[in-house]
């Protein structure tokens, strides 16, 4: 008997029900004017942005102008090197009128760009108490994830591989641990380079994937966005359907070795 169902499969974060499980970014596009078509092709409902000082010499650019109005903005705290800076950036993003979602990103190692788990947890706690819907970017570490749960995070966003590397699910084993142990949506963020990798993450039971670089730097970003949207849907459907049997050494060996329950008779 199967009790899983595909009906009404929504991802609820911070009280918002999402039907798309692909989050996209706005960084690294050759031209921001591609963003509306990318967003449309991906089917995504959540899009990340960053907050930066206005370049006083060239103040005109405004990424928000390119984002379809129905999309939920997920500002990140990129540039923050400490918990305090992340909190400051989050409050500024909220003051900018873009809602109360925040992707916490605290990185003080500029070579590997790996997130600081302790600072991330502290910033998460402060902001969750202030009413933010906090989605922290993290290394897939079980203890950090538990700290984030205790801190009031709305989801956890483990990296599949270091940011921007497109190397795929190098941390698959550890992400699997989080999916098993953590009672929050696990959204794979960073490292996903190909639709097949996003699909794999979803098959494993990830709640969503965030893909920026792989779409923005593709030869045809709009077509790649569509491919990612389809891959995420396929992976989710596969997860909900339950994988069929795979022949393994154990299964084959079972009949060959001596019976373990023969003592019970029939």
């Amino acid at each position, binding site marked *: 008997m199967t009790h899983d169902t595909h009906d009404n499969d929504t991802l609820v974060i911070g009280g918002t029900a999402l039907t798309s499980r692909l989050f996209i970014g706005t960084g690294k596009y050759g031209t921001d004017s591609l963003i509306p078509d990318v967003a449309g092709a991906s089917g995504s409902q959540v899009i990340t942005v960053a907050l930066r000082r206005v370049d006083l010499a060239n103040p005109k650019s405004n990424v928000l102008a390119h984002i379809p109005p129905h999309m939920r903005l997920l500002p990140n705290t990129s540039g923050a090197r400490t918990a305090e800076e992340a909190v400051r950036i989050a409050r500024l993003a909220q003051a900018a009128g873009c809602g109360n979602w925040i992707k916490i990103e605290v990185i003080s190692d500029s070579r590997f760009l790996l997130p600081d788990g302790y600072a991330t947890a502290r910033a998460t706690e402060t902001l969750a108490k202030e*009413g933010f819907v906090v989605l922290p970017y993290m290394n897939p570490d079980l203890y950090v994830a538990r700290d984030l749960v205790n801190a009031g995070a709305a989801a956890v966003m483990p990296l599949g591989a270091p940011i921007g590397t497109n190397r795929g699910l190098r941390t698959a084993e550890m992400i699997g641990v989080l999916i098993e142990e953590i009672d929050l949506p696990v959204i794979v963020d960073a490292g996903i380079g190909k639709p097949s990798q996003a699909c794999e993450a979803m098959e494993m039971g990830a709640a969503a994937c965030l893909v920026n670089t792989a779409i923005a730097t593709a030869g045809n970003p709009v077509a790649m966005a569509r491919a990612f949207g389809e891959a995420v849907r396929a992976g989710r459907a596969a997860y909900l359907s339950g994988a069929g049997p795979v022949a393994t050494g154990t299964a084959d060996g079972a009949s060959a070795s001596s019976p*373990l329950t023969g003592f019970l008779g029939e």
Partner: protein
Amino acid sequence: MSMYDVVREWTPRVADAPLRAFMDATTAGDVARVLRKERLSPYDLLTLLSPAAATQLESMAHRARELTVRHFGRTIQLFTPLYLSNHCTNQCRYCGFNARNHIPRQRLTDEEILAEGRAIVATGLRHLLLLTGDARQVSGPEYIAHAARLLAPLFPSLSVEVYSLTDAEYALLVDAGIDGMTMFQETYNEALYPELHPAGPKRDYHFRLDAPERAARAGMRSVGLGALLGLDDWRRDAFFTALHGHWLQRRYPYVDVSFSVPRLRPHAGAFQPAHTVSDHDLVQVILAYRIFMPSAGITVSTRERADLRDNLIPLGVTRMSAGVSTAVGGHAVREQGGHAARAQDGHAAHKDVEGQGDGDGATPQFEISDPRSADAMAAAIAARGYQPVYKDWESVLDGGYGCGIACAARRTPSGEPVGASTPAAPRATA
């Protein structure tokens, strides 16, 4: 979400009619599918407890053995029970220590506790399980803690299987060097429970249900759970027992969770179980526990026959008792050459009543079926290609595992208790 919430959520789903409907609809193919999965849902667990799965025990056994060897190696940890007192104020209808049974009541003195301890140490056993009846006036938490302090120099690991305690009382036991507790809910069927426990403090279903959590919170390193199979439909009670373990493991990840599989068996004149649990059923429960929770310990007591226990060794069992007496003072009495033939087993709440007429001042809580000594048990384990482990664990720090880690696990990064903070943003669901 407390365990009580889990029970309330699942009780209607596994009531007689929906449970039967699920079982009828489950096929051998469903079982095969579950056996290929890495992570099992509660419905997968039910599938493993189904009649369809009963036809697939051999495949389940191979999966269980593989998981057990992966997590525990080929080892069986040995322990033995020490009954401190059989005074009891409860009237559990299935128990030999029932307050209404007119049996000699006894509580060990300091000298007797040490005599029992020395007799056990002489057999090589190092893991000890302390048991009492439920009589706070006679064998209160202070008495149990005192006994633990007497025995701590002799045993690297002390566990208790006693009545439900409060947070502070579990902390007292942890402080006295006790690192494990076992608590059998007997049955998770909240409607049936009061019928079986007509009087006494144990009548409080909810207080008993939450006892393992209180123990975990107090810093107990290992927590054992069990249902007395046969009181209710064993499939339902096994299901809830496993859910309880899974819930506890997730909430208190530093705890070693284990399951015991005591079962009632019919015999003349004694309490008649409502549901019989055959050897075949027992094996199915053990395999389902193992496959559902690969990292959980599984304990099989000497309530089971020697030949069956030996056959269970490769199926997922990790702990077995040996050299057992379920009578107060039974170890030293035996050492003095008196009653070797009446060896009995631990697991406090699970008491067949056969032994109650025994008028020698050492009435057993229930009759055991495997009287083998520690040496004989170790030899039987070795004969199956497994290693008997006498000492698996010793606290590195004085004062034991303590509350530090227990408390740390339930705090926010800034050190506040979880749940005590100001209203947070709406939480998400996966």
